[in-house]
């Protein structure tokens, strides 16, 4: 932390109305706004995107708005544009990472995107009906306000719309499998589901963290106090600090690996300002997802479904300029290194996805060593197991991580997961997507087209003025 000595934290300026935030990257976004001033990342980008909307759907919306059956074409286009920018904002730099050497992620991602767009609408429609309508879906979102270790979180909820609708439709458009005015009704189904879950969770009128200057402060005060009561003080450089941060990193790594190198395995909320001025980040690390067959090594290691870490950061210690908890549940700061500014921590474990909150238990930092050993053991076993899998298995396993896990928490809470498996063949691969398996490696589709169309925001074509809200796809020609 030699570079921040003598400086003061300025991050609160980011929450002033006129402030445009910092730039975290030098790239700019164009999307469907060709010929207009390019859009930046961060708070300024959010303001620009809101100013270009034709409807009010990107402003704070009411419960009645959310309960309305469907979006208008203008609202659909505003959401499409905003999600495309948001995807670019959080993923354009991540998407520079190239080949994995382990898991063919670009390949499984694009298959999952398209599979979701085709298959989710009827499953989400069924789920909405089973819980009695839109209010039931909002209630599912609201459960996250008083839980930790829940996958009803920013990244999963965002994925419903940003991935299932946004990237799925974008990928199919790029593959020329659909036209811009196809599947309007299905698009509405997916986006309404997303809006309801997110609105129910946030309850401040917004749905995305980027609309609220990258804050995801969803927990009730009394609930937070139960967690902060377990926080132990930590001093940078001490063995206890090292034990806590080492465990955070190792468990986060396993959560990535168990979820095939994607961010569905972790979920941050916050920042919550504590009475002493420090900031709290709550981090769920899902190290054992029972629905994945390869997670048996995590089960064998005796790992819980989720570890939740409470990280207390001293903003003055790092001269914090900006903190973002973005919509894929990941925290980024300027300066970048917040680890040395962690001054307190606590760890909790939730054994199963449905373990009652009253049975979630704290783990003392002095006792983390044994848990760390189990995490490392599972990591090595899962790595060895994964390295022996053939390419096809890796791609379809990864596809399932996206296509199943992104809506799994919502179906579980709705009680419709078994019905989706039994009556809707959830785990079957649609024939159309099965055939795309052979197309995605041709002409660099996964390696070049996907990054250029999906992560750069260039392929999110709008619905036309002629599009009917009832449009599905009438013909395959």
């Amino acid at each position, binding site marked *: 932390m030699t570079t921040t000595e003598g400086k003061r934290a300025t991050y609160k300026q980011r929450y002033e109305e006129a402030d445009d935030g910092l730039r975290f990257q030098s790239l700019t976004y164009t999307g469907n706004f060709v010929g207009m001033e390019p859009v930046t990342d961060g708070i300024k980008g959010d303001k620009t995107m809101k100013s270009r909307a034709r409807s009010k759907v990107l402003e704070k919306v009411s419960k009645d708005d959310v309960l309305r059956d469907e979006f208008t074409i203008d609202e659909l286009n505003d959401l499409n544009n905003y999600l495309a920018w948001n995807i670019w904002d959080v993923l354009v730099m991540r998407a520079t990472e190239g080949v994995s*050497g382990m898991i063919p992620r670009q390949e499984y991602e694009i298959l999952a995107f398209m599979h979701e767009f085709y298959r989710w609408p009827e499953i989400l429609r069924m789920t909405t009906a089973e819980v009695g309508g839109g209010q039931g879906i909002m209630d599912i979102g609201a459960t996250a306000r008083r839980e930790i270790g829940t996958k009803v979180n920013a990244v999963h909820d965002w994925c419903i719309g940003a991935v299932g609708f946004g990237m799925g439709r974008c990928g199919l458009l790029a593959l020329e499998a659909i036209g811009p005015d196809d599947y309007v009704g299905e698009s509405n189904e997916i986006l309404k589901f997303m809006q309801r879950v997110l609105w129910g969770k946030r309850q401040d009128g917004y749905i995305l963290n980027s609309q609220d200057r990258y804050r995801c402060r969803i927990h009730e005060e009394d609930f937070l106090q139960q967690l902060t009561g377990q926080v132990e003080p930590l001093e940078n450089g001490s063995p206890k600090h090292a034990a806590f941060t080492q465990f955070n990193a190792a468990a986060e*790594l*396993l959560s990535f690996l168990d979820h095939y190198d994607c961010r569905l395995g972790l979920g941050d909320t916050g920042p919550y300002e504590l009475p002493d001025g420090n900031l709290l980040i709550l981090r769920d690390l899902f190290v054992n997802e029972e629905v994945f067959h390869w997670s048996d090594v995590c089960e064998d290691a005796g790992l819980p479904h989720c570890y939740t870490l409470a990280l207390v950061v001293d903003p003055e210690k790092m001269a914090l300029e900006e903190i973002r908890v973005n919509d894929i549940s990941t925290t980024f700061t300027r300066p970048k290194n917040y680890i040395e500014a962690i001054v307190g921590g606590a760890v909790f474990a939730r054994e199963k996805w449905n373990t009652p909150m009253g049975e979630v238990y704290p783990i003392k930092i002095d006792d983390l060593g044994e848990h760390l050993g189990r995490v490392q053991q599972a990591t090595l076993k899962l790595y060895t197991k994964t390295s022996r899998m053939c390419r096809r298995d890796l791609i379809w396993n990864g596809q399932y991580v996206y296509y199943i896990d992104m809506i799994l928490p919502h179906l579980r809470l709705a009680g419709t997961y078994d019905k989706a498996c039994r009556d809707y063949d959830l785990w079957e691969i649609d024939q159309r997507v099965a055939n795309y398996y052979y197309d995605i490696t041709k002409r660099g589709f996964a390696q070049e087209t996907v990054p250029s169309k999906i992560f750069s925001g260039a392929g999110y074509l709008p619905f036309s003025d002629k599009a009917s809200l009832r449009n599905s796809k009438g013909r395959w020609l």
Partner: protein
Amino acid sequence: MADVLAEGYNVFDTAKSPSGTVKYLESPADVIGLIQSGRLAEHILLVQGGTTTFLAPALSMGAIGVITMSGAPESHLGILSREFQTPCVMTAHLTSSESRYVVGNTDPSHFEEIAKALDGRKVRLDCTDHEVGRVVADD
């Protein structure tokens, strides 16, 4: 002034400046072999991709420094190296070469050139700058 062999994105600024012999890892078998050799702490790891699973056990078991040929601090490997406090230079390019990484459009010769130049060299990572990480000759 020490000879800067390569530069890239600095994932996080740190006073840590690990030194070791560059080990280019091409396959999961290479990663497992290095861990089993017990010599993980002697090496700065060089990998092509910026994803995290490929290096998973090496990170977990205490890698001292990482160089990648693609990716950014927002990539999964960037996030994890920050969490592990493992200094990491991403999308490194040789200072002696004009060749640069372009997403989805990089000839394999780009990666081969970097691997050939760095593999086996004794280097030190300089990650004190906010944005630029440097691979410095240490032999």
